[in-house]
């Protein structure tokens, strides 16, 4: 029980520290804060910092690599300045390309998107809590499920932030998927423990752990394959976020939530 609580506290500390240093609890990419993102397809080899030096200005560079060969497939460059036309000319000259993808997002829409997202996640959590409560009709187990889902999100956000990945629109999709998965495994645990009256509590928890771990391991295996084989940024971000989240979920469900249920059912006896 100590480990999940410790992780939650440390995660909150990381997010809180982010908030006090740059005013938001997680760093956001252009899709959530506004600006430009240019993706160039090229086989030219540079390191991201070389590109940053050559182009100069307020930019950050990500390199896309082929998993099979390790060669460059292209670069995604986020640009925070306000002279996009001359910047694009520099990009064209550096990579010798005429075709590339650009995302241009006004700060106003990204601000609204971010606010909408926070609302959507809150609404989702409340609606899920309601469903879980209606299902089990017991306050403590329902709260334990929701608590596990929330600690999972917080832990994952903190881990992402530590890895220096900024949150994007696809990251938000991943966070909501994660919420679904984590509630899934908790429902398996709670249903097995609450609905089966025949076996002993420990047997019930053990059987749930077996099913739940199989679920997590298959999901992690599938997501690892997805992470390794895809080059599309959105799929990479989603798979990476989910892998981190599912690993945390193992702790949150089988140590934290199982612990809570043990205490809860033990008290009742």
């Amino acid at each position, binding site marked *: 029980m100590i480990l999940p609580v410790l992780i939650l506290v440390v995660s909150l500390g990381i997010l809180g520290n982010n908030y006090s240093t740059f005013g938001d609890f997680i760093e956001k990419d252009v899709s959530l804060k506004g600006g430009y993102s240019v*993706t160039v397809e090229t086989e030219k080899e540079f390191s991201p910092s070389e590109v940053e030096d050559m182009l100069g200005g307020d930019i950050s560079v990500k390199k896309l690599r082929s998993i099979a060969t390790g060669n460059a497939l292209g670069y995604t460059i986020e640009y925070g300045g306000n002279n996009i036309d001359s910047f694009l000319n520099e990009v064209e000259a550096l990579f010798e390309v005429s075709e590339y993808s650009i995302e241009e997002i006004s700060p106003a*829409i990204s601000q609204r998107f971010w606010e909408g997202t926070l609302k959507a996640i809150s609404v989702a959590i409340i609606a899920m809590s309601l469903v879980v409560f209606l299902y089990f009709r017991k306050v403590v187990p329902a709260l334990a499920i929701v608590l596990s889902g929330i600690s999972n999100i917080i832990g994952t956000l903190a881990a992402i932030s530590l890895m220096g990945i900024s949150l994007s629109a696809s990251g938000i999709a991943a966070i909501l998927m994660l919420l679904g998965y984590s509630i899934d495994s908790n429902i398996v645990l709670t249903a097995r423990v609450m*609905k089966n009256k025949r076996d002993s509590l420990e047997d019930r928890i053990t059987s749930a752990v077996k099913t739940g771990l199989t679920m997590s391991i298959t999901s992690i295996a599938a997501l690892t394959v997805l992470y390794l084989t895809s080059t599309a940024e959105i799929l990479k971000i989603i798979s990476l976020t989910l892998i981190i989240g599912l690993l945390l979920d193992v702790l949150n469900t089988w140590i934290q939530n199982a612990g809570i249920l043990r205490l809860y059912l033990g008290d009742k006896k």
Partner: protein
Amino acid sequence: MKLLKILSTGRVMLLLSFILMSFIAISPDPWASGLEIKGIDDNSSAKLNGLSIGDIIKSVGGEKIETFDDLFIELDSYSIGEIVNLETDSGSIAFVKESDNGFTVKELGTSNLKKGLDLVGGVRVVLRPTADLAESDIIDIIDLLEKRLNVFGVSDMSIRNSKDLEGTNYIIIEIAGASREEIVNLVSKQGKFEAKIADEIVFRGGTDIKSVCRSGECSGIPYQNGCYQIEENQWQCRHQFSVGVSTESAQKHSDITSELGIVGGYLSEKLDLYLDDELVSSLSISENLQGIIATTFSISGSANGLTEEDAIVNALADMKEMQTLLISGSLPYSVEIERVDVISASLGEKFFGEALLSIVLAIFAVGGVIFLRYRNLGIALPMIFTGLSEVVIILGFAALIRWNLDLAAIAGIIAAVGTGVDDQIVITDEVMRGKSADESWVERMKRAFFIIFAAYFTMIVAMLPLWFIGAGVLKGFALTTIVGVTIGVFITRPAFAKIIEQLNE
């Protein structure tokens, strides 16, 4: 025998028929080649002679046509006025070659799946009206934008309205294969065009304009004094084109000009042209036009470039934009650009096949883990089969409702198949556990589906809010996930339960 028994159960038959229907909906045809008519101009000779949208071009003048290059090389070999014989899948037609072919084509798809913009490349613009508008005003803006893009020569586009949780309206325009500058300029301008003399409006764009000349005889860059060099590396070209205006506007011209004085052969006031309240050009009016009921006006503007060629290209682009705005008229309200995405086609192409391959590989990885856990092919193989059939049915559904598959939708497929695997593990454990505890099948399934439905409802309520945020960026994700888990819970997972029960009896 066992196989036959499994196939004949109701649930499995339902699953098989859904897979079959999905294949019909997708109707994959990897060997499809040819060009389909995508758009056709109303007054073109080709249209008048019976060519219609959806026809598939077989040959031109007896030469077989398979690619864009085939078609354009063949069509370019005719000179204007010659008769072109075109063979299509619905018969043969003959039409007169004009300066413009009068139709646009697209390559025949290899299936009914529609790929979203981030998989085929193109431009997406998100606009926000600057005022709070009613639904009907938004529809007016959308109609006008559609007309404007049509006039400009874009026929394959999607314009839709989207509302976020706060009730802010957005207009989302997606055009495959277009370039950034021209589209952004065209859709972000309100396009309020006014021609004034002495600050009085003579005519406006839209309703007052009866015709706009777009052919070479009365539009283009004048041969004489059309272009000149301003300084080193700076050229300027002037374009002009004539427009016909309504009789009321012609009368207004007569009324206003009759009261003006004459200075050196010209009237004392000029004809000032404004676009979105900005003066774009100011033309002197010759004295012999005083008091005339003029129905034809010459409109002009200019553009700069580094070289003379650049300036010509820019001036002609400027002219086309102005002509388009004049014909389609002004938007009732101004709009602001909130987001522009330009997706390069070559990047997009790669993603689609690759993403589907990744999903299939991921499903096989799941099968591998499952085999290691249960040491039983009778569980691992049905699991792989169920996962793959969920992908096929989701794609079939997407083809049926003509849903655009974008990367977000592919992420949704992953989410759906992922929860599917989780559910199947729950089913498997209940089936195997119940077998040793000697419980009835119904009892075991009741327990498994109790968990599955709890997970299903929580997933749905988590996805619904996503529908409404960020001008619909994640709508595709939410929809595919919801559709996918629904198909899973009601069709594929019950069938899976039956299959492993029969196989592991």
